[in-house]
């Protein structure tokens, strides 16, 4: 991939004679357009029922997904540019793949949210537009081919998520989580912006391929560029919740409405890792030998700290938050390995999004109105009260622990094998030890569900909408575990980041 460096596209200023190609960003137009339409519609309608809004949001997501599938074949054709809008937006299968995953996450997020908000009595019209804006930010960030656009997309998704985190503002924890998330998020944005400034200072451009082109010829005076890489990595580290930038995660995940937690834990991670992979494998690929050790260290610390801190948690949402931190570490193992690791990390992202969405969906259904039953104790005897939820939760937890035949197992094998191939076997050793530590707390929940008597008998609602949001991720977790070839076949072309 290194050999293709140097295909610097026309600078933004000279692109006036090139016809503007909008196709690759049409899905974002659809998402944002739907969001705006929904806002207006909600302002004029009198009906309290939120179902039409949710359905319209789903329709928008489906349309964006359909267009993305069409784009899949569009980008493959000869003559179509690798990058459009003056080098701002990448038109490659990597972006499309990440976008499809995110749209899936968003669709499940809408279903979960409808159920949650309806039950909590907090349904307000601005929710679905916010979710759609966040999704548009997420899908755009993975396609952004310019640091400025990366930042814009990052802010779009972050601002929407801050609001969504505080959506149950009457519950103090939600308001607090939103505040913390906002403050630390703003802090990380500052890092990110500073990183962009340094990158511009070092190379005179913010275009990813432009930066790579400048850096590849340079042999000295890389201090600025290294600083830029470090600051950008820090910014991404915040978003993916890597240690030591993870402080906001447990509080935000715990305080946010569970449907938002589900959506953002899966969505933010996929989107931020998508951008992370792209920026570091294009713009900073000439510095690969400098950033690899840094990511190596962050990955190791993240896995170990995430896994160990999760043991001490008594709240399921907090436990899953630390688990998601640990998983960021496992994905970083794939990022460190680069090359084959990209494919592994992408598989991991899909597997992770599937299982964490499913796990939080179960958490949402178990915690009744007002988020009362979120402590581990409330899982005692779940197998008796709701065999379906217990089986599904066990499946997600096993997948998170990396036990076959689940997607989590194949994902771990994929990133670990890439890292071994790159010669990072000490990192893999740390990773497997962290997996064993992590297995402990996943297993503890299964113990509670299957081996203890129910503490109190709270009736669990059984609605078909909610069942779908659990059944779909469960089916996918098994499918990708048994037939991972389906996904790897797609990833073969999608894991190539063109620049």
């Amino acid at each position: 991939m290194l050999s293709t460096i140097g295909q610097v596209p026309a600078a933004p200023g000279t692109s006036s004679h090139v016809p503007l190609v909008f196709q690759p960003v049409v899905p974002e137009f659809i998402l944002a357009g739907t969001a705006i339409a929904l806002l207006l519609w909600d302002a004029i309608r009198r009906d309290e029922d939120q179902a039409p809004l949710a359905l319209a949001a789903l329709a928008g997501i489906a349309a964006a997904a359909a267009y993305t599938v069409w784009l899949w074949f569009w980008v493959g054709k000869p003559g179509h540019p690798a990058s459009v809008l003056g080098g701002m937006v990448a038109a490659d299968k990597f972006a499309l793949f990440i976008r499809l995953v995110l749209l899936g996450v968003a669709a499940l997020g809408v279903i979960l949210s409808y159920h949650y908000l309806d039950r909590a009595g907090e349904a307000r019209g601005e929710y679905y537009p916010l979710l759609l804006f966040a999704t548009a930010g997420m899908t755009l960030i993975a396609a952004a081919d310019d640091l400025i656009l990366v930042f814009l997309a990052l802010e779009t998704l972050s601002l929407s998520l801050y609001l969504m985190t505080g959506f149950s503002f009457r519950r103090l924890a939600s308001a607090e989580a939103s505040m913390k998330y906002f403050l630390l998020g703003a802090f990380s944005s500052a890092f990110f912006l500073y990183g962009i400034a340094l990158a511009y200072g070092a190379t005179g451009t913010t275009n990813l391929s432009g930066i790579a082109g400048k850096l590849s010829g340079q042999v000295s005076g890389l201090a600025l560029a290294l600083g830029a890489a470090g600051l950008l990595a820090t910014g991404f580290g915040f978003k993916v919740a890597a240690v030591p930038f993870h402080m906001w995660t447990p509080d935000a995940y715990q305080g946010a409405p569970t449907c938002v937690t589900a959506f953002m834990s899966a969505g933010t991670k996929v989107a931020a890792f998508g951008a992370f992979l792209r920026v570091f494998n294009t713009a900073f690929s000439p510095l690969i030998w400098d950033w690899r050790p840094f990511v190596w260290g962050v990955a190791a610390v993240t896995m170990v700290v995430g896994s160990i801190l999760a043991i001490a948690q008594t709240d399921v949402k907090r436990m899953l938050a630390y688990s998601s931190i640990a998983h960021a570490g496992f994905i970083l193992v794939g990022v460190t390995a680069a090359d084959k690791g990209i494919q592994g990390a992408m598989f991991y992202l899909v597997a992770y999004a599937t299982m964490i969405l499913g796990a939080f969906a179960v958490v949402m259904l178990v915690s009744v109105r007002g988020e009362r039953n979120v402590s581990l104790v409330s899982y005692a005897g779940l197998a008796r009260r709701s065999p379906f939820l217990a089986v599904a939760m066990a499946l997600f937890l096993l997948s998170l622990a990396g036990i076959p035949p689940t997607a989590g197992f194949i994902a771990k094998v994929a990133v670990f094998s890439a890292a071994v191939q790159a010669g990072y076997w000490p990192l893999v050793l740390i990773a497997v030890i962290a997996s064993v530590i992590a297995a402990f707390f996943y297993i503890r929940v299964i113990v509670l569900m299957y081996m203890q008597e129910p503490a109190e008998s709270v009736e669990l609602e059984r609605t078909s909408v909610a069942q779908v949001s659990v059944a779909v991720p469960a089916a996918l977790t098994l499918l990708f575990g048994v037939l991972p070839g389906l996904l790897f076949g797609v990833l073969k072309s999608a894991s190539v980041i063109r620049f």
Partner: protein
Amino acid sequence: MLWSAVPPPGPIEDSGGFPWLTLVTFAPLAGAAIAAVFPSRLLKLHRVWALVVTLATFGLSLGMLAVYHGEGGFQLVERAVWVKALNFNYILGVDGISLFMVLLTTFLMPAAVLVSWRIEQQAKYYMVAFLILESAMIGSFVALDLLLFFLFFEALLFPMYLIIGGWGSERRVYAAVKFFLFTMAGSAFLLVSILFLYFRAGSDLGHTTFDFTQLQHLVLPVDTARWLFLGFFVAFAVKVPLFPLHTWLPDAHTEAPTAGSLILAAVLLKIGAYGLIRFNLGLFPEASQFFRTFVMVLAAIGIIYGAAVALIQTDVKRLVAYSSVSHLGFVVLGTFAFTLQGMSGGVLQMVNHGLSTGALFLLVGMLYDRTHTRDLGRMGGLGGTMPALAGVFLFVALSSVGLPGLNGFVGEFLVLLGTFIVSKPFAVAAVVAVVLAAIYLLWAYQRMMHGPVLNEEHRLLPDLSGREYAILVPIMAAILLVGVFPQPLLDRIEPAARQTTRCVIQTNQAAQPGQGVQLSSVCSEPPEGGVPIGDVARRP
């Protein structure tokens, strides 16, 4: 460059079109999937269905046995591509070693279902867990692709964990978690080692692969091979279990429900021993030789320690559990003697231990169902009220002790012979344990069955029921059959044992100090008749 030439492919025979192994492996899983559809309140249906599925699987495995012929090498091999992009393959095959492990599994599963007949609490999940477990166990024995093996190896953890933790006795959760974490920790190292081999194949053979028979052709530096050996060894030593990694076993065995103990002892422990033979010896012959004394010492400690601790147990289930530590030490001692007798005896002893100790756990479970105690001090004189049960117990205990005419004798004798050729001190240590085994089992028998009746309620206990006869009689028949007529088994075990042993010895004879060692071409060549391998190669 004697070893640089790519050796001819090993004697691998495909299945001739009919996927015997796939059927045997996945029949229980399919059964579990069907059972999952039916509502849990149909208790009887779930029991009968589980029995039907396990019996059908046993029938299929008999078909597999009929197709299998006596020569060495892998037979009934099936290959398919699983994930093309990463070169993951689906490869199954059996040789004389795995053949009997599969048969042992399928033979004992109906007994496990029958002995669980009375379980009412969540019986559906119980049976489904057992069926999934059976698939994973069979899969572990027949997988010839390392990743596939690892997948089955890990997949059997969870059902077993649920069975111990969900349906065990008082300290079941502790035992289940301990079992899970020990095994999981061991297999973590296994995964890293497997991945290392996978990429080593990528650079040495030109394509990454997990295929066991291809990985045997790798040329590894001596140090690397030794580290990898340890990576594999830890995973399997936990499972076997070898001293000092055995501490999960007494807890797991004691707390598990009867059928769980049966399967743990009879099959799960064998997967560890099988892994040592198949993968450690098969992939790292030089390292095996290097660590031989180390492993034999651990095995010998396990033999004596297990027997000595069994001697002082008052909980009869714990006693049988510790006797497993001792018996599995025998298996490992025999296989690491690297003699044909030791290896054949070790494999046969794996089958024997499955039958005898499995039956002991069944009997202890039946006793517990009646007396509600496992404490030897509270039993006594039970032989008077339950003569048939006492008789069966004595029969099985004697087979476990190694009475000539029953199965234990043949295996133990071969192991002792094979060890004696190599090292007299180890053989002496093993003989001591044979004596100890006679003491602790017969003494336990005496305390339970003879003497005055300690508890008046025990006078009213019923003797064996028809269902219990149905469980025990086939196992007793097998015990007797192997005891008086072991030749059909040995005929099939021997070629595979010969090949594995030869592979270790010849590689070491050919290896030069300090050079890379080929994961031997001799390992995958057809065995020639009459090669004298009783003599032991000295490490160069």
